[in-house]
């Protein structure tokens, strides 16, 4: 049963990932990523990360992707031209990436770490992966990282205002200013 779930999730996530890369229209790429994230959340569940699976769906597929959709819609779903100034990148890039995949796989499969060949211990602490357990860790051991992450969100908001916000002088001086 678990195997089936994994393969369904893996094929779905991977297929969607490929779709993100391949699809010409950025709009569909965004949608493909949403699908990818949904499948990924499934795999998270298999790894006993219930809270993160939920967070992935809610925060990511829900909120962040909306932002993507919005921006993609705002700038227009420009399809990439067929013409490529450097077509060899299209070939060499993937070859190198495959090589990287092989290298990482060798590193993982060739590792002497015996636990890698198991599905993981059964005697995990109770509540493994639940919001409560993760929350405890977050507030106890990783308080600083958590706080820093929240500050990061604040900073990102400021950055977005700086970059995308429009100010009065813009409207006066810039050719693109009449719209807002």
């Amino acid at each position: 049963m678990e195997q089936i779930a994994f393969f369904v999730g893996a094929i779905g996530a991977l297929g969607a990932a490929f779709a993100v890369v391949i699809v010409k229209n950025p709009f569909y790429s965004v949608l493909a990523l949403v699908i990818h994230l949904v499948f990924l959340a499934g795999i998270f569940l298999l790894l006993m990360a219930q809270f993160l699976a939920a967070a992935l769906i809610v925060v990511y597929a829900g909120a962040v992707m909306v932002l993507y959709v919005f921006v993609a819609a705002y700038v227009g779903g420009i399809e990439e031209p067929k013409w490529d100034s450097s077509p060899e990148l299209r070939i060499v890039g993937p070859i190198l990436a495959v090589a990287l995949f092989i290298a990482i796989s060798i590193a993982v499969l060739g590792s002497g770490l015996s636990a890698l060949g198991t599905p993981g211990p059964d005697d995990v602490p109770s509540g493994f992966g639940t919001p409560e357990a993760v929350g405890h860790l977050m507030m106890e051991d990783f308080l600083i990282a958590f706080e820093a992450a929240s500050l990061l969100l604040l900073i990102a908001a400021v950055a977005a205002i700086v970059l995308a916000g429009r100010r009065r002088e813009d409207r006066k001086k810039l050719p693109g200013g009449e719209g807002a």
Partner: protein
Amino acid sequence: MDIEWYLVLSALLFATGFIGVMVRRNPVVILLCLELMLSAGALALLAFSRMLGNQDGQVFVLIVLVVAACEVVVGLGLVVAMYRRRLPLDVDEIKELKG
């Protein structure tokens, strides 16, 4: 399911994301591919977390999600700013800085 499988999957996702960065020209799509790479890292972390029975990795993944969201916000902000400047949204066209 053995942990190795999850890791191989994550390596595949990582490579896929990297391919996207190398072949796509639309910055919005490149940002999506960066998401793929980060989520590959997150998957690896969760797999190890499961293998070790240690939830540190799960907290780490949460942080990674936050970071990814922030990167997206700034990246999209830049895309919007460029669009407003009427700059081409094509990384092959933005190469004034070179040499």
